């Protein structure tokens, strides 16, 4: 009994550690990436004994230290308790969502099969949405507690945007859910192991291409990253809802945001790109369509799967960051119109088509 708990604890710690670090690295990637894109050097001043590490030291060590040591400032008449609570509320859902995402098939250790997924809930997808909806709290409370017009405006915008895109995301995911017939992510990933016509791996994107597009856009909007950057819109409302935040709390917001990027990437890979699935790789080795079989040890298979998963997640994180530095910011009404008048109908159509397709193919 204790062993199970221990295993879960390890898994949980491992996932948490991986996400937070990834968030930090993404911070650096973004800094350097944006510099590369904008043909500038990027942050490289901070160095330890002369070693700047291409700005790594700057973003990973200098910035966190600076933020942590800054004065924990609470605006006048702001709600003291709520002000400190808001960043936690922002960060908490982002981290927790990863618990449901499987990063590997099964690890057989000492006769025990360990499911490489922190929590195997049969209502995984709903859990994800539940946590996504919680993240709105952070913004709203943060905005209200800082007793600042700009933050209030940012908070309102953020809340409205997240709520509306949540619907679009939800509907698009339902398409996938119908196809796979289950709400449990691990089962979905395993289902993506099959092959269409013997050679094409049956990934989500292949079955539901439209759903993927909708989902990805909505996910980016959820994370409030650049194209949908109205809540933070520097040009109009300084820093949006976290204008009054500095130091540790801002760091939490910042980390929260990157954690959401990672989670979004994880979700996309799990739902649409077969999660840890490597094409033609089964439990005991590769089975290529053109007949050749390469048997592998279970451990190596697992390592391969986890690696595949990680690569996919990194790719999507990179994609989101690139997205940020290429697309201009949408006006707020454009965001809203996109959310309600384009994504939502599209998702409904997609849902309707998938449902029709299923009814036709599978006799009731």
């Amino acid at each position, binding site marked *: 009994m204790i062993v199970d708990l221990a295993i879960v604890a390890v898994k949980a710690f491992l996932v948490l550690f991986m996400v937070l670090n990834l968030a930090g690295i993404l911070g650096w990637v973004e800094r350097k990436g944006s510099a590369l894109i904008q043909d500038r050097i990027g942050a490289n001043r901070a160095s330890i004994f002369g070693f700047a590490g291409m700005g790594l030291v700057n973003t990973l060590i200098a910035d966190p230290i600076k933020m942590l040591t800054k004065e924990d400032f609470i605006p006048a008449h702001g*709600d003291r*308790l*709520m002000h400190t*609570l808001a960043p936690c509320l922002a960060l908490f859902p982002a981290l927790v969502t990863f618990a449901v995402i499987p990063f590997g098939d099964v690890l057989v250790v000492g006769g025990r099969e360990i499911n490489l997924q922190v929590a195997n*809930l*049969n*209502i995984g997808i*709903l*859990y994800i*949405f*539940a946590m996504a*909806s*919680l993240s*709105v*709290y952070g913004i*709203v*409370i943060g*905005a*209200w507690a800082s007793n600042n017009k700009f933050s*209030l405006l940012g*908070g*309102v915008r953020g*809340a409205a945007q997240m*709520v509306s895109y*949540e619907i679009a995301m939800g509907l698009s995911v339902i398409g996938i859910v119908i196809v796979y017939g289950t*709400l449990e992510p691990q089962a979905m990933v395993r289902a993506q192991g099959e092959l269409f016509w013997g050679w094409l791996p049956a990934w989500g994107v292949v079955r539901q291409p439209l759903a993927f597009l909708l989902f990805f856009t909505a996910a980016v909007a959820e994370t409030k990253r650049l194209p949908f950057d109205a809540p933070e819109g520097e040009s109009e409302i300084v820093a949006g809802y976290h204008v009054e935040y500095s130091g540790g709390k801002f760091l939490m917001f910042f980390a929260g945001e990157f954690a959401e990027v990672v989670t979004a990437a994880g979700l996309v890979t799990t739902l649409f790109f077969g999660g840890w699935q490597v094409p033609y790789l089964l439990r005991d080795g590769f089975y290529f369509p053109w007949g050749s079989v390469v048997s592998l040890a279970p451990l190596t298979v697992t390592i391969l799967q986890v690696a595949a998963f990680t690569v996919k997640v990194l790719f999507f994180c990179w994609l989101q960051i690139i997205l940020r530095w290429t697309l201009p910011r949408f006006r707020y009404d454009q965001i809203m119109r996109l959310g309600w008048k384009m994504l939502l109908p599209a998702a409904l159509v997609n849902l309707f088509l998938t449902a029709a397709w299923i009814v036709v193919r599978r006799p009731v």
Partner: protein
Amino acid sequence: MIVFFILAFLTLLFSLLVVTQRNVVHSAMALAATLFVMAVLFLTLDAPMLGVLQILVYAGAIMILILFVIMLLNPLSIEARPAAWWMLGSLGAAALCLQLAALVHRPAVSAEAAVPASFGGPESIAQSLFTDFALPFGLASVLLLVAIIGAVALAQRQR
């Protein structure tokens, strides 16, 4: 058993906060917390689907709406507490609570029924929802539609 007591204590604590907090936002947050703990309570009662729904619907949507309205209206009224009225109200509530508690000792449920694993899961709920409760489901959706239209009509700023 301990889990239940912890959760019960938290629920009562937060609900008391909801009622007694002078600042509206605080009571709103307290309500959110109560809902969250209730969701966990649901889980202990083998109702995972409802737990998540609770968070998704209640904590996620309704509370946001309430917070939204609070932010929009930004009411500053820190009301005075009329002691007499409070005492009266709480007395009434206490009396009601005693009555309900007294009810409990009636032999409502004989034995604890065995419950299949996927008891609270989406499949079993969906199963009975769309078979036995199809009509109420339809009505609920109409109700929601009406509520939406009503809310928009009411809250719309008369041009």
